[in-house]
């Protein structure tokens, strides 16, 4: 039975790749990245053993191991989206016991690039343990590493399932999405604070932390081998119990939430709402927008950024990251100013799959024959309604936290330039490389299989944007103090130029590719 699930997963992955050249290419890149992570991780974890440094081994194995478990929990939520290719709701009608379903889905989740890469990387820990503590320690660590992988998968599956279930009803989901996105986005800045603290603390305190973590389920599986090496074999069975109990508990929790996940959306149709006066057009289009095609598109886009939970989650995540990350950085002593160069492109990258958000609804615009340039310009305008005030706030916050209020205008210029350069890259990309998002109620489901590959596309556009911002950085550096005065106008001009270029190229592309784009963003066709 379990084999059937694994084969289904492999078959789905293979079918998704069939006859789609670029998907195969992205998949291959994903696999290469996985191999890179596996090899790099292996070397990193094996290093303490090779250097014969037992203290470092204790620290690295425990803390990095805990880090791996945590990243299994948060990375899918924040960056890659959940792989929904085996959506439990699709098994609802089959006569499967809960036990079969759980073990099947669990086994299927183990099959995949991330799981294999994690396993190979953590084999480096076995290497270290064997070198420092002999064969016995190595074998114990091997068991620990295996259990660690199970723990990783169990954590990510069960927590995601629980979130997905809690968020099934549309209203609840919309609210919870915002909170979750905020929480997830806060992790980065928090981590920075912790790191800053760690930089000041001495190694003995870190060792204390590691010792504590090694007794939690997070660090327990990975620290078993070193316990043997240190001659505390009695700790192994205790840690085994801790880990197994954690895995068991998580699986139990997962199976409990799975039942509800299988029932699907309980659509709580709220009726009516307060009747707002006004004609249909004035209900749609804001008062200050022109009552034209452009106005309608812009207004719809702006409403969608707020009303659609996936987009709103992105918006909120960005707001939190954009404000807190530079602020946290400047608190730790570094200059937050450099971060602006990353935040501008990050703001633009949200549009990299803007047409994908629409899904098949984009057909309405195709049937109406909206010119490509109007389409892209209005989408940017709708997004800018949220983004421009946010960017201004970010520039001010960073300036104030940095203690350089005088630099606020020039930083705003830098931000505008970076945002515009981002648009220049992202608008054509959004037309050329649009992809379908799954038609599910789960706001975190951003990709259907091959998620790593699509995340990669975003990353590449981000990189290209950063490259596009280099001229402004160079100018700011060369001009020195003069930049304080001309930074704002020059940055704005650069940004607007980038935006116009992007809209020009992208609009032209879109005019020639409308049906193809529609086919690309329509799920499961």
């Amino acid at each position, binding site marked *: 039975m379990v084999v059937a699930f694994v084969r289904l997963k492999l078959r789905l992955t293979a079918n998704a790749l*069939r*006859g789609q050249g670029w998907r195969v290419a992205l998949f291959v890149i994903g696999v290469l990245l996985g191999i890179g992570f596996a090899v790099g991780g292996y070397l990193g974890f094996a290093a303490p053993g090779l250097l014969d440094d037992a203290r470092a081994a204790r620290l690295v194995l425990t803390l990095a191991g805990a880090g791996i478990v945590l990243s299994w929990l948060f990375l899918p939520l924040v960056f890659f989206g959940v792989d929904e290719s085996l959506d439990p709701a699709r098994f609802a009608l089959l006569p499967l016991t809960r036990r079969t379903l759980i073990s099947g889905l669990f086994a299927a989740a183990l099959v995949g690039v991330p799981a294999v890469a994690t396993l190979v990387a953590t084999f480096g820990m076995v290497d270290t343990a064997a070198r420092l503590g002999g064969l016995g320690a190595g074998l114990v660590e091997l068991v620990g590493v295996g259990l660690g992988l199970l723990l990783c998968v169990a954590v990510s599956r069960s927590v995601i399932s629980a979130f997905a279930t809690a968020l099934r009803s*549309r209203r609840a989901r919309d609210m919870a999405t915002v909170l979750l996105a905020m929480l997830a986005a806060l992790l980065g800045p928090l981590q920075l604070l912790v790191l800053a603290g760690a930089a000041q603390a001495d190694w003995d305190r870190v060792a204390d932390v590691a010792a504590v973590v090694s007794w939690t389920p997070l660090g327990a599986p990975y620290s078993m081998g070193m316990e043997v090496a240190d001659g505390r074999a009695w700790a192994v069975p205790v840690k085994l119990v801790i880990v197994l109990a954690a895995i068991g508990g998580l699986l139990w929790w997962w199976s409990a939430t799975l039942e509800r996940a299988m029932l699907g959306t309980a*659509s709580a*149709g*709220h*009726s*009516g*709402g*307060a*009747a*707002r006066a006004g*004609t*249909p*057009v*004035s*209900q*749609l*289009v804001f008062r200050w927008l022109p*009552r*034209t*095609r452009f*106005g*309608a*598109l812009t*207004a*719809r886009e702006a*409403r*969608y950024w707020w*009303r*659609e939970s996936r987009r709103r989650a992105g918006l909120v995540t960005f707001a939190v990251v954009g404000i807190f990350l530079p602020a946290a950085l400047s608190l730790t002593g570094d200059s937050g100013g450099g971060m602006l160069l990353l935040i501008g492109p990050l703001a633009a990258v949200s549009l990299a799959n803007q047409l994908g958000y*629409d*899904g*098949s*609804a984009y*057909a*309405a*615009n*195709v*049937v*109406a*024959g*909206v010119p490509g340039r109007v389409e892209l310009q209005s989408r940017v305008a709708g997004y800018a309604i949220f983004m421009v005030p946010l960017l201004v706030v970010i520039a001010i916050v960073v300036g104030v936290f940095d203690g350089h209020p005088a630099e606020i205008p020039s930083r705003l210029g830098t931000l505008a330039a970076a945002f515009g350069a981002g648009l220049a890259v992202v608008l054509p990309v959004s037309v050329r490389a649009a992809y379908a998002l799954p*038609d599910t109620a789960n706001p975190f489901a951003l990709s259907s299989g091959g998620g790593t590959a699509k995340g990669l596309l975003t990353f590449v556009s981000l990189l290209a944007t950063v490259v596009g911002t280099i001229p402004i950085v160079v100018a700011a550096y060369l001009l020195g103090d003069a930049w304080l005065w001309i930074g704002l106008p020059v940055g704005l001009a650069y940004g607007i130029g980038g935006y116009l270029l992007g809209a020009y190229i992208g609009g032209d592309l879109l005019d020639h590719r*409308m*049906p*193809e784009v*529609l*086919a690309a963003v*329509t799920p499961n066709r």
Partner: protein
Amino acid sequence: MWLRGLVKRFEANVAVTGVDLDVPAGSFYGLLGPNGAGKTTTLSMAVGLLRPDAGQARVLGYDVWSDPAAAKKLLGVLPDGVRMFDRLSGAELLAYHGLLRGMDAPVVDQRARELLDVLELGTQNRTLVVDYSAGMKKKIGLACALLHGPRLLVLDEPFEAVDPVSAALIRDILQRYVSGGGTVVFSSHVMEVVERLCSHVAIMAAGAIRLHGTLASVRGERSLEDVFVQVVGGRTATGSELAWL
């Protein structure tokens, strides 16, 4: 609507193998076919939603693929299995479609109100379209297709999942539209509706038109259902199979 040699391949299989179809202006044309016959694919290619691998499509003389702007202006489309911008309320969605078509705001307001009223969707209803029932979604989709006063309406499965009351209402509206000089093409696999409404029918199977003409010439002396089953090549139960039922 004038279609010549439309072909569409999806990866390995050919969905539509050369469709020729003439829809006379002012006709009420029913496109019949079993599931998977290629009805949706054909109509998508005819209205500019799906690029054909070969062939031509013209709407009232304008080529859909070489002169899309002119053709799309005269065209109203209700696609099937396609989402709408459903995070808008019904009124907002209509306003969006109207402005998208380049209409003046006062005209949009007036027509949108009328359509919402006639289709019993409520002019002051603030429910988002995503929370509408299936029948209401079809009705608001039809309203969007009608709003700009097209000369040709292309409807894909307009009666699917619609309750009898709404179906009767949609039928009335479509009949009025045709008697006012408009042309309607719609796909369906419900014989009764087609027999009741259409002046012309075409039967499609396995990606090709098998039989077409006026309703009377296609039907002859038999019922449309018999003709359909015969043309499509379905089997009739003899009673010997599935004996365990």
